[in-house]
C-alpha cells in the first residue's frame, strides 16, 4: 500500500511538469491553431532564467588570499559576490540561496517578451500554412534556441539548487500512520506539485472568470464570428501565446532544482508533451492537464521493480502504449472535441 501511495505521489509530481507543458501547448494550439514544437525550448529557457539570475546574483569581485594556493600553486583568488558585500554576508547569502523562487519574478517578463517576439516575428507568418510547415519552422526554432543556450552556458548540466530551507525530504508515511521511511518524499517535489496546481488553477480561472478569458474561449470556439463582432481576437491570441510561453517558462524555472538544467532538456520533454496533448485531446485544456497527470502516474508505476520484472521494458514504452490504446478506442483523445484537426 505504501509503495502504491509513493508511486501515485511520484506520478502526480512527474505529471505536474507534463501537464504544465501540455497546457501551454494546448493554449497555443487551441487559440492560434499552431503546432508549436518550440514549446519545449521555452521550458528550457525558463530553467535557464534561473541559471541566469543565479549567475547575476553570484557576480563577484576578486581578492587575493595569500594563505591559500590555487591548482597551479599561485595565491588563491577568492570570489566574493557583490550582493554579499552590499547586503552583508548573511542577507546576501540568503538572497543567493533563494535564487530559484526569485527567478519566477525574473522569468515572467522575459518569457512574456520571448513569447511575444516569437509570435509576432515568426509564427504569425505561418498561421495559414499547413501544420507540417508549422512543425518544421518551430522545430528549427527549437534547435536554434538550444544551440544559443549551449553557446553561452555550455553542454554540461548546471545546478540550480532549491533554497536550503526546502531541501531534503519529508516522511509523509509517518504523518498518515505508516512506518518510518515507508513514504519518503522530497520537499521540493511537493512544492513543484503545489506550484503546478496553482498555475493550472490560475490559467483556468483566468479563462473562466475574466472578460478577456471569455473572449478568448469564444475565439477558440469560433474565431470568425468573434472577429465579426469587432473584437481584435488576433491581439488577444498573441497575448495568450505570451501567457503560454510564461507557463512553460515558470515550469522550467521551478524544475531546475529537480534535475539540473541543460540545453537539451526541452527536447527531452517535447515528444512526451505532444503525446500528452494527443491523449488528452487536441485543443482541450482539461484534457491536457488530466492526461499529464494520468501519464505521469502510469509512467511512475511502470518504473517500479515489479512492473519491469513482470514486463521487461514496460517503463520505456508505457506512455506510447497508452497513447496507442487511447487513439484506437477514442480517436479524439480523452476530452477531444469534434472537428479539431479533422478538416
Amino acid at each position, binding site marked *: 500500500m505504501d509503495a502504491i501511495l509513493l508511486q501515485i505521489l511520484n506520478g502526480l509530481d512527474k505529471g505536474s511538469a507534463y501537464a504544465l507543458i501540455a497546457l501551454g501547448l494546448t493554449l497555443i494550439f487551441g487559440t492560434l491553431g499552431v503546432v508549436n514544437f518550440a514549446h519545449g525550448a521555452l521550458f528550457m529557457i525558463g530553467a535557464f532564467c534561473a541559471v541566469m539570475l543565479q549567475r547575476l546574483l553570484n557576480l563577484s569581485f576578486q581578492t587575493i588570499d595569500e594563505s591559500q594556493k590555487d591548482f597551479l600553486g599561485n595565491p588563491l583568488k577568492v570570489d566574493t559576490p557583490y550582493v554579499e558585500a552590499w547586503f552583508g554576508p548573511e542577507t546576501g547569502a540568503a538572497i543567493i540561496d533563494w535564487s530559484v523562487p526569485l527567478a519566477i519574478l525574473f522569468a515572467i517578463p522575459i518569457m512574456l517578451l520571448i513569447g511575444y517576439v516569437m509570435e509576432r516575428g515568426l509564427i504569425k507568418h505561418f498561421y495559414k500554412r499547413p501544420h507540417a510547415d508549422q512543425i518544421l519552422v518551430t522545430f528549427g526554432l527549437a534547435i536554434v534556441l538550444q544551440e544559443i543556450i549551449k553557446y553561452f552556458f555550455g*553542454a554540461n*548540466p548546471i545546478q540550480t539548487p532549491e533554497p536550503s530551507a526546502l531541501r531534503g525530504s519529508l516522511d509523509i508515511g509517518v504523518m498518515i500512520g505508516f512506518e518510518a521511511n515507508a513514504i*519518503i518524499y522530497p520537499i521540493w517535489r511537493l512544492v513543484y506539485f503545489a506550484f503546478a496546481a496553482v498555475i493550472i488553477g490560475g490559467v483556468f480561472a483566468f479563462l473562466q472568470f475574466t472578460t478577456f478569458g471569455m473572449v478568448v474561449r469564444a475565439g477558440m470556439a469560433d474565431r470568425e464570428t468573434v472577429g465579426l463582432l469587432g473584437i481584435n481576437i488576433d491581439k488577444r491570441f498573441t497575448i495568450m501565446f505570451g501567457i503560454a510561453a510564461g507557463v512553460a517558462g515558470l515550469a522550467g524555472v521551478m524544475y531546475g532544482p529537480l*534535475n*539540473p538544467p541543460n540545453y537539451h532538456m526541452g527536447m527531452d520533454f517535447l515528444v512526451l508533451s505532444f503525446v500528452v496533448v494527443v491523449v488528452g485531446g487536441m485543443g482541450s485544456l482539461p484534457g491536457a492537464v488530466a492526461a499529464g497527470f494520468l501519464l505521469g502516474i502510469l509512467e*511512475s508505476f511502470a518504473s517500479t521493480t515489479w512492473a519491469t520484472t513482470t514486463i521487461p521494458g514496460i517503463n520505456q514504452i508505457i506512455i506510447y502504449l497508452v497513447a496507442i490504446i487511447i487513439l484506437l478506442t477514442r480517436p479524439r483523445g480523452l476530452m477531444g472535441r469534434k472537428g479539431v484537426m479533422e478538416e
Partner: protein
Amino acid sequence: MSNNELTRRGLLRTGAVAGAGVALPTIFTASSAAAYTNEPTGGTVTLGFNVPQTGPYADEGNDELLAQQLAVEHLNGEGDGGCLNTFTSKALKGNGILGKKVTFVTGDTQTKSDAARASAKSMIEKDGAIMINGGSSSGVAVAVQGLCQDAGVIFMAGLTHANDTTGKDRKANGFRHFFNAYMSGAALAPVLAKEMGNDRRAYHLTADYNWGWTQEESIVASTEALGWETVNTVKTPLASTDFSSYIAPVLNSGADVLVLNHYGGNMVNSLTNAIQFGLLDKVANGKDFKIVVPLYSELMAAGAGENIKGVLGSMNYNWQLDNEGSRAFVKSFGEKYGKPPSNSAQTCYAQVLLYADACERAGTFNPCGVAEALEGFEFDGLGNGKTLYRAEDHQCFKDVLVVRGAQNPTNAYDTLEIVEITPVEQVMYPPNHPMFGGDEATLGECNPGA
C-alpha cells in the same frame, strides 16, 4: 627423364627471375608507394581527433580537444614541452614525429556511433589522418575501433570504460589507455569494505546499454566477493531524465547502499534525485545509507555540484595526483587554458604522445610497426605513474584512483579528493577473463591497410 629435369630447372630458373623482376619495383618503392594507409609523403603527418563537439558530451569533447592540441604543440617543440620532459621514453625530441611536423584535423562524434564512424572515415579518406584519437563513449570507441581496423590506421581510444573495448571487441589496431569497469570494481572493493564493512546490501540502478551492463557486472562481482548481497539491479533507459520513480522504492527494498551505474547527464540527475530523497541522511539495516558512483569525471562532478559530497567513485586520473608527470601536465595545461585538465583530457594527451613515441621507436608510421612498439611497452612520466600497455589485449595497466566528492571544496576545481591510489597489481586480470570475452577474444591480425 633428362628432358623433364631440364624443364623443371628451367621452369624454376625462369620463375625465380620473373619473381625477382616482379618484386623489384615493390622493394625499391615500398616506402614511397602506399605501403600502408595514409603513409605520410610530405613534411607533415596528420592526426585525426574524433571527439564529441556537439551533443551532451560537448564539454568533455572540448576538454579532450584542448589536450590533443597541447600534445601536438609539445610534439612540434612548442610550449613548455609538458610531459616530453618527464616521459621515461626519450625517443621524442620535439621535432614532430619522425622529423615530420604534426598537424591535425578534427571530427565530431556527437557521441553517436554512426556519426563517429562517418567523421573518422572522412578524416582517414579525405584528410589523410594516420591515427584516430578521442571520444567519450564506449559505443563510439568500439565502432570507431572497428572502422580503424578495417581502414588500416591506429585507433588510440579516448574515454571508454566498458570492458568490451579491450575485451570481446578488442582489435589489433586499437589501444586503450583509459581504465575499465573491471578495474573500477577491483579498485573500489577494498575501499568499500574498509569504509562500509562486509555486510552490506546493494541496490543497482544501471544505464540500459553496453557500458552500464559491463559496469554493473563488474561491480556486482567485486562487491559480492566482499560478502555484500545484491538486492536488486534495475535497468534505466538511457534517455531517462528523471529518476525519482526508480529512487523512490530504494529505501523500502532492504538495501543500504545505492550503486549508480550511470555516466554523464544520467549520473548527474540520478545522484541529484537520490540526494533529494534524502537517502544519505537515512539509516537502513542499522547502518548509514551510502551511495557509490563507480565512474566519476570532473565534469560530472561539477554538474552534480554539492550532491557528490562524500560519495565514493573511481577515476583513471585526477589532476591532484602528485607525481612528476602529473605536475608537468597540470602546469602546462593549466597555464595555457586556466583550468586543470579532466581525466578524459589526460588520457587523450597521453595517447597522442604514446602514439608519437611508438612511431619514433618503430622508425615508421606503419600501423603494424607502431602496434608492435606499443605492445608490452612499459613507461612512466605521463601522469599515471608506472604503466604497461599489455600486448595481449592492448589495455593499459596502471594504478587506479578511488576518489570521493570533496566535503569542503575551496574552489571550483576542488570537487573530488583522492581517497586511495589502488596499486596496479590489485586491478590486473588475465587477458582471457570471462568478462573480457574469455578464450574466444582475440586481437586478430594487424591491418596496415592500403
